[in-house]
């Protein structure tokens, strides 16, 4: 099984449902061009979950909004290809993309309170989502909305369907958002930080729900988060982003058991972990993420990387290629293979 578009191109029949190739999303602003996403490629198959991890501002949301075609016309300069079931969405007629939105691809947002219209009932908002793409009577749609609410675990869906979003708790709102996203059985579900605003207990409920629903609907899921713990719960594959680019991409097991990129090491070292002995000291990454207007030359991570000096001046002058280092595990780093293995085994792993 491969996760990288180039390889899967040849496989023909089993094309991944979503393929993103060399996606660039740039925003011209007064201060300069913000290169929010720069040369990003990945793919997701039906029934699989891709986790996208990265710090805030690394381009996760911009990526997901590009897939959904939700960037303002003219505000963003988008190039590359976004293939949804083989059809390229970049440059496609906006009306055609709209008809795909909500039907074949749907999205869940971070803050369910602000993401729902305060003046319409939860039911009305689900009914609306269903009726855009399905010509059915209001009553039929309402019945469907109640079924969906029941499916996502809202108690008393028959009466709660007429509640307004502010009458729901945070967890219930996110469930309702999920119900709305699922109303037309989308084949691709993008969840942008779906649990960041929720408590751990509720987060666990929502993650369980997404997992169950995915199995039921066999959809492709893109789970965006900054929390490595959350992706570990759900993702089959994980892509780590830094400054608008992918720096590492592999199976979830690989990412946690043998990560190969210094940034991924940094993320793992920064997190206190309940599943390990308590370490005396966290190992933060020094410095702060770069501005996307002035991305550092060479490797964008070089000002913060502890190993930047180990490659002559390569890390400072040449952008490392995002390449396969075996078995579909991709990284973008100049470190020679031996050094990487050595650093991981001797320096990083023992401290986690």
């Amino acid at each position: 099984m491969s996760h990288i578009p180039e390889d899967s191109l040849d496989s023909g029949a089993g094309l991944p449902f979503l393929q993103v190739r060399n996606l660039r999303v740039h925003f011209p602003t007064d201060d300069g061009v913000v290169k929010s996403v720069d040369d990003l490629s990945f793919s997701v198959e039906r029934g699989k979950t891709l986790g996208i991890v990265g710090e805030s501002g690394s381009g996760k949301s911009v990526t997901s909004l590009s897939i959904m075609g939700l960037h303002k016309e003219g505000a963003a300069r988008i190039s590359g290809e976004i293939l949804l079931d083989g059809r390229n969405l970049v440059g496609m007629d906006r009306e055609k993309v709209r008809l795909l939105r909500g039907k074949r691809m749907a999205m869940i947002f971070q803050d369910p309170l602000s993401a729902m219209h305060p003046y319409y009932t939860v039911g009305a908002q689900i009914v609306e989502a269903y009726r855009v793409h399905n010509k059915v009577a209001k009553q039929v749609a309402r019945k469907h909305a109640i079924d969906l609410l029941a499916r996502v675990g809202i108690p008393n869906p028959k009466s709660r369907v007429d509640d307004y979003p502010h009458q729901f708790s945070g967890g219930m709102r996110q469930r309702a958002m999920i119900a709305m996203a699922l109303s037309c059985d989308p084949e691709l579900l993008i969840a942008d930080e779906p649990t960041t605003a929720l408590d751990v207990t509720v987060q666990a409920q929502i993650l369980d729900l997404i997992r169950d629903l995915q199995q039921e609907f066999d959809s492709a899921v893109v789970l965006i988060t900054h929390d490595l713990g959350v992706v570990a719960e759900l993702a089959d594959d994980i892509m780590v982003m830094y400054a608008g680019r992918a720096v590492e991409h592999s199976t979830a097991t690989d990412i946690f058991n043998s990560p190969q990129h210094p940034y991924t090491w940094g993320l793992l070292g920064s997190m206190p972990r309940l599943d390990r002995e308590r370490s005396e000291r966290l190992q933060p990454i020094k410095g702060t993420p770069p501005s996307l207007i002035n991305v550092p030359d060479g490797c964008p991570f070089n000002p913060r990387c502890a190993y930047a000096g180990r490659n002559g001046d390569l890390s400072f002058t040449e952008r490392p290629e995002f390449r396969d280092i075996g078995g579909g595990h991709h990284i973008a780093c100049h470190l020679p293979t031996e050094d990487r293995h050595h650093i991981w085994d001797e320096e990083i792993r023992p401290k986690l």
Partner: protein
Amino acid sequence: MSTPKPAGELLSVTGLRKHFPIRRGILQRQVGAVQAVDGLTFSVNRGETLSLVGESGCGKTTTGRLLTRLLEPTSGKIVLDGRDISHLSMSAMRPLRCDVQMIFQDPYSSLNPRHTVGTIVGAPFRLQKVRPENGVKRAVQDLLELVGLNPEHYNRYPHEFSGGQRQRIGIARTLALKPKLIVADEPVSALDVSIQAQVVNLLEDLQDEFNLTYVMIAHDLSVVRHVSDRVAVMYLGKIMEIADRTSLYERPMHPYTVALLSAVPVPDTSRRTRRERIRLQGDVPSPINPPVGCRFHTRCWKAQEVCKVEEPALAELAPGHRAACHFPENVGGSV
């Protein structure tokens, strides 16, 4: 003080309550109250970190604001360094503000955007009319250096800094008057992981250097384990369990603590299938009408009839480990 206190005790809280009245109707009569904090008893020793954890709305911030006396308690007693501060007036509290300081959650809204870093960090000196030896400017620059900021940024404005740097500014401000107690309300939850680790380390270094005492408010149980000496788990305004870090994380007694711990996602895929999970159903009930008996009984998987009628006492079930439950886990055996 008539009551003898242990040598190291800096803060002691007894039966602390804060009810926010709800007013309705033509005459704005009080029709009920949000029982935000409902009877907390705990103490904090000098140089230690006590963390308050719990789900959103359980009363953590309210407790923090009571301890710093930004709010007046409805009842109960707060004794700081041998002095009862429960009902001190604003003016009587003023000199004590040197001793208790608060760090706020949101690094973006807690700093006045129109003031320079120098003004913000130097404000406590001016407010308390303290004259540092080498002048305010020098003192502020020392503080900036201490929290890992460039002292030359004295004249910059908050918006020129990143979230992590702003949180450092906030920390520098609280340190200005060498407080004895720092109440930190979710100091790192708005920050990215890599930056969060920097700030956590900074807080720990400062604690070692100045023998600071922290009351840390947080909801991330992994961070809490890392920073705390002792942990209090709150639910609907009450303490459900309080213990030292090791016994709380290794032998949690209260079903709520067990559930919270099992809900924390762990960055390890091999755990996905092996882990035994306890999934709490539903949401936290309203603090206006908390359930009678044990407050947790509506979501507890161990609840029995007795839990609905009789409120369990916060009892010491092992040395230094107290839990409020009729059917606690992990008791006996391991102690």
